[in-house]
């Protein structure tokens, strides 16, 4: 099960339908998708995303392993390139036998995604692509090559 990367906005209904079909007839008691939608804010027309896939896939594989140890599965879809306001750029999901584990896992998974998935966000304003610096988070271990003296 890999990360699903789509060019442009996500078809939320189609992706959720596909994931629902995957759990059909299996013994998952809880399925929790998180759907992230681009908000209209600060006159942006869209957001835009760069992704560094090799490290994203490793990050995701580690989460699959963590989820497996808790008897669960994680899923993820993300957009590459431009995503207009009111459309979706990101869907994460957890499938778990039990409610409590599922609620904890989706929270941890989404928060760690925001902090450590190698994806860069840009605002599209007046046709320009501007790095969303103030909303971005240094990854764990950031500053390693910074001059200390």
């Amino acid at each position: 099960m890999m990360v699903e990367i789509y060019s442009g906005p996500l078809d939320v209904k189609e992706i959720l339908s596909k994931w629902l079909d995957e759990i059909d007839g299996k013994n998952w008691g809880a399925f929790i998708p998180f759907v992230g939608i681009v908000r209209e804010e600060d006159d942006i027309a869209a957001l835009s995303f760069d992704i560094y896939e090799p490290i994203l896939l490793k990050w995701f594989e580690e989460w699959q392993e963590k989820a497996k140890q808790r008897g669960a599965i994680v899923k993820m879809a993300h957009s590459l390139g431009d995503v207009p306001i009111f459309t979706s750029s990101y869907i994460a999901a957890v499938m778990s036998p039990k409610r409590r584990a599922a609620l904890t896992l989706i929270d941890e998974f989404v928060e760690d995604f925001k902090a450590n998935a190698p994806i860069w966000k840009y605002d599209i304003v007046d046709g320009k692509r501007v790095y969303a610096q103030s909303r971005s988070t240094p990854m764990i271990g950031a500053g390693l090559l910074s001059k200390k003296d």
Partner: protein
Amino acid sequence: MVKIEFLGPIGKETIELDAKNLSDVASELNKDKNISIWLEKSAVALNDTIVNSLDLPLKDGDRISILPPVCGG
């Protein structure tokens, strides 16, 4: 020679350097102010694995990636 690639918004072409370890890379990159301002807040990967030590020996053909602050979703 090792390759240094700058990801996301840094917007700089990949470069090649002679370096025995990451300390050498740090010294070299900090000479360029346009790069050093990114280094303070960037994580570092060696051949697509995030690393946390400057002492790692490098070998010919190694690929180092500089990952600036992220914001997926």
